[in-house]
């Protein structure tokens, strides 16, 4: 299929983009286009106007900012994977992004686009929630910083206002003994996961002091499972107990490839797989 008609506007700078977005509530931002264009081509979406922000300079910066790693919204998945500052400060990012689509898609798809889109099956929103990241948005009234756990409201729904644009994400630098571990199950390398888990762990394999579990491709947004994490810390890995706990904590939503029952099973097994990756 082909996209319906829309007008195209190449934004000159951030203010220009904010102004158009504020005045046309059926306009949408075009960043890497790797989620938006499939939706347009399939006519799942028919906005009046696309505001192309991909050529705005300065929005793809990656740097250490105080106690955080800042990734600019327009940094592509490939940029982030090849960046030394990211590699040194957040080594899990490479392994995670390797599972996001395929190289030609990662050459265009952006970090900010993935965060802003809020696809429940996407890895980065779950990573942002698991690491307590802050999402920086810019609008008519200036910038605001939103904690990732408050950013995601539901299926493709975020707290971002019509006049706002994501400009970057701040990930707190890892503390000593802290590790981010990740795994997912998918049908083909690079496809969206059937279920995935990002764990934020303090301690070592035999001595876990703190554990945060955030699942993706399970419900309508990144699913935090604090109760199950506590149970796992107290009792160790027990498939039946953890499965039972997850079933009360997450509203599993089945899709074409996997039923909600299957996702519940995969999520439970993922806890074991992820914990086994920790060093002793």
């Amino acid at each position, binding site marked *: 299929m082909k996209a319906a*008609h829309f*007008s195209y*506007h190449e934004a000159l700078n951030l203010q220009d983009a904010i102004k158009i977005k504020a005045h046309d509530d059926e306009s949408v931002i*075009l960043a890497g286009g790797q989620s938006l264009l*499939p939706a347009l081509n399939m006519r799942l979406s028919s906005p009046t*106007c696309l*505001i192309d922000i991909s050529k705005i300079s300065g929005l793809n910066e990656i740097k250490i900012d105080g106690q955080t790693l800042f990734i600019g919204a327009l940094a592509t998945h490939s940029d982030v994977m090849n960046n030394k500052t990211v590699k040194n400060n957040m080594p899990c990012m490479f392994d995670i992004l390797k599972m996001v689509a*395929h190289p030609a*898609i990662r050459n265009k798809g952006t970090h900010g686009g993935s965060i802003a889109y809020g696809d429940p099956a996407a890895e980065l929103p779950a990573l942002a929630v698991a690491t307590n990241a802050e999402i920086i948005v810019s609008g008519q009234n200036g910038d605001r910083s939103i904690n990732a756990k408050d950013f995601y409201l539901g299926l493709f729904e975020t707290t971002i206002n019509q006049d706002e644009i994501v400009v970057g994400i701040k990930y707190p630098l890892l503390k000593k003994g802290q590790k981010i571990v990740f795994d997912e199950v998918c049908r083909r390398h690079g496809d969206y996961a059937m279920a995935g888990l990002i764990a934020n762990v303090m301690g070592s394999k035999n001595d876990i002091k703190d554990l945060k579990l955030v699942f993706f491709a399970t419900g309508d947004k990144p699913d935090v499972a604090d109760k199950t994490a506590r149970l796992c810390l107290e009792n160790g890995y027990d498939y039946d107990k953890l499965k039972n706990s997850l079933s009360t904590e997450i509203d599993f939503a089945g899709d074409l490839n996997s039923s909600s029952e299957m996702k519940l099973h995969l999520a439970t097994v993922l806890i074991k797989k992820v914990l086994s990756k920790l060093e002793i």
Partner: protein
Amino acid sequence: MAGNNSVNISFTVNGENFNNVNVPSRQHLADYLRSQGFTGTHLGCEQGACGACTIEMDGKAVRSCLVLASQANGANLKTVEGFDDEMMEKVKQNFLKHNAFQCGFCSPGMLMTTKEILLNKKKLTRDEIRSEISGNYCRCTGYQSIVDAIEECINEIN
């Protein structure tokens, strides 16, 4: 309403200049290229999944079904028709030798992905080659012959 339903852009395809051409805002790059005779760029899914439309934009592989023609302003594009340098001639010979072209529908995308693999200059195992081409569907070969061809290309280069 801001913006326009069509835009004027300039870019190059395989070194040929396209100056100030008018493209509809909603047209994706693959459709534009095909309309200009670059029919080696194939369209399978138009949603990024099959890889048949993969071309090179400013030195990087991209899905031309997921880039608007209007976004190509100022870009240097290379399609399969422009894969005529020494390295790509060798790649094509290896694909022929191993019978990695059957119906040919996936081939332009496979060649582009192979080019990116070779430019990265890494020695890959067969499993790694499979993971690198996981974004390109082939409905004929069963992939075996394509992996054979790419493996030989990598061995020749390293």
